[in-house]
C-alpha cells in the first residue's frame, strides 16, 4: 500500500509541477477571494481582524474544490482511471497517494494564504504557543480536507456533471472543518478566546481527519469500480 501511495503521490505532484495550475490559477483565485472579502467588509481593519480566521478558511475550502477537480482531471481526461483499476495498485494506496499529494498542495497554499492574510487583514502575530496551535490546526485540517476531497473526487470522477456536483457534495461535509479550524485559529490569534480553548477544536479536527482517512481507505476501491 505504501509503495502505491508513494508512486501515485509522486505522479500527482509531478503533474501539478508541470501544469503549474496551482500557482497560476488556484493561488490567484484564493488571493482574489481574500481581496474581495476585504472590499466587501469596507476595509475596516478591526472587523477584518476579527473575521480573519473564518475568511481564510472559506478561501481554503473554495480552493479545495479547484484542487480536487485538478487531482481527478488528469485521471478522467484520457481514460487513466481504467488503467489505474487494471494496474493492480492497491486502491487504498491510490487513495493515500492522491490525498497526500492534495494535502501537500493545500499546505503550500495555506502558507501563501497566511502571508496574504497578514498583508490584507493585518492580524496580531501569535505567540509561541499560538504558533504551535496555528501550525497544528493547519496541518490537521488540510489533511482532513484532502481526505474528504479525494473521497468525493473519486465519487464524482465518472459523472458528466462533476464540476457542479462536487461543491454540493463537499461543502456540507467539510462544515465541521470550517467551524473547528476557525475556532482554533481564533484562539491561536487571541480573538475572543484563550489559547487553551483551541485544543478541543484541534481534537475534533483530528477525529474528523482520522474518520475520513479510514473511510477513504475502505471505500476508495469500490468507488473506483463504480466510476
Amino acid at each position, binding site marked *: 500500500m505504501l509503495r*502505491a501511495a508513494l*508512486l501515485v503521490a509522486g*505522479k500527482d505532484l*509531478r*503533474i501539478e509541477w*508541470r*501544469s503549474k495550475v496551482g500557482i497560476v490559477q488556484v493561488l490567484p483565485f484564493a488571493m482574489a477571494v481574500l481581496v474581495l472579502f476585504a472590499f466587501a467588509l469596507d476595509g475596516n481593519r478591526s472587523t477584518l481582524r476579527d473575521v480573519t480566521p473564518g475568511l481564510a478558511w472559506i478561501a481554503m475550502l473554495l480552493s479545495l474544490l479547484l484542487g480536487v477537480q485538478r487531482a481527478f482531471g*488528469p485521471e478522467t*481526461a*484520457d*481514460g*487513466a482511471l*481504467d*488503467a*489505474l*483499476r*487494471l*494496474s*493492480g*495498485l492497491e486502491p487504498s494506496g491510490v487513495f493515500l497517494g492522491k490525498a497526500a499529494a492534495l494535502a501537500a498542495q493545500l499546505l503550500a497554499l495555506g502558507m501563501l494564504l497566511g502571508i496574504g492574510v497578514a498583508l490584507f487583514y493585518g492580524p496580531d502575530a501569535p505567540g509561541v504557543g499560538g504558533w504551535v496551535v496555528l501550525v497544528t490546526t493547519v496541518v490537521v485540517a488540510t489533511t482532513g480536507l484532502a481526505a474528504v476531497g479525494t473521497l468525493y473526487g473519486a465519487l464524482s470522477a465518472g459523472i458528466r456533471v462533476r464540476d457542479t456536483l462536487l461543491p454540493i457534495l463537499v461543502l456540507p461535509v467539510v462544515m465541521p472543518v470550517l467551524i473547528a479550524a476557525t475556532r482554533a485559529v481564533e484562539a491561536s490569534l487571541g480573538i475572543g478566546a484563550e489559547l487553551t480553548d483551541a485544543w478541543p477544536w484541534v481534537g475534533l479536527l483530528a477525529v474528523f481527519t482520522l474518520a475520513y482517512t479510514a473511510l477513504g481507505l475502505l471505500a476508495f476501491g469500490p468507488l473506483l*469500480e463504480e466510476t
Partner: protein
Amino acid sequence: MEAVVDLHDAVVLLGRFPALAGVTVTIGAGELVVLRGPNGAGKTTLLRLCAGLLPRVRGSATVLGLDTEHGARALARRVGLLGHRNGLYEDLTARENMRFWGRAIGASRDEQNAALAALGIEGRLAEVAVGRLSAGQRRRTALAVLAARRPELWLLDEPHTGLDTDGRDRLDGLLRAAVTAGATVLLASHDLDRAAGLATRTLTLVGGRVAGDEPAAVPPAKGGGPC
C-alpha cells in the same frame, strides 16, 4: 485447448440498454481473435467485460479461469486493455508515463525501455509531454505501456486508429510476437484488411449477440516482431 475467455449467455446493461444481449463464446490460449461488427454492436462492451470492468446481469463470464466480477482484482494484473482512450497523463512525458505505469505493473526499466523502442518512441520524442505528441505518437506510447505489461490476454479496441503505416506494422509485429509467446489477443477493428492478416478467427457481433464465428481464411504469418 485451454479456454482463456469463456462467456455463457452473458448479458451486460449500459444503463437500461443491453449492450451484450446473451453472448456465448469460448476463446482458447494463443488465439488472435478479431471482433467485427457495426457501431454499437457490443465490441467495446465485450472487451471491457473481459477486463473485469463491467458487471453482468445474467450468465457467466470467466477469463483466465477467474470470474470477471468476483476475481476482478486478480484478473486486473493479467489482462491488458487498450480502449479508445490511451490512459496517459498529458502533462507527463512519454517516458514518465512509462515509468509510472511500468512501476505500477512491476515492469523492469529494461522492459520499459525495450517497449518504448519497439514502438518507435525513443530519443527526444520520449522526453516530450504526451499532450504535445500527435495522436499516433500517443497511441504508440499507450501500446508501449501495454507491451511492457506483458499481459496474458490483450484486449484491444481499434488499436490501429491514428497509427501511420510504420506504427501499424510495429503493432502487428508486436501482436504476432505476443501470440507466439503464448498470449491471447482479442482485437476489435473496423480495419478488416489489416485485421484479416492477423486473425486466427473472426467473431462478428450484431446487436449485442454473436452473429458469426469463423476461422481465418488464410492462417496469419507466425512470429517475428519488433518486441
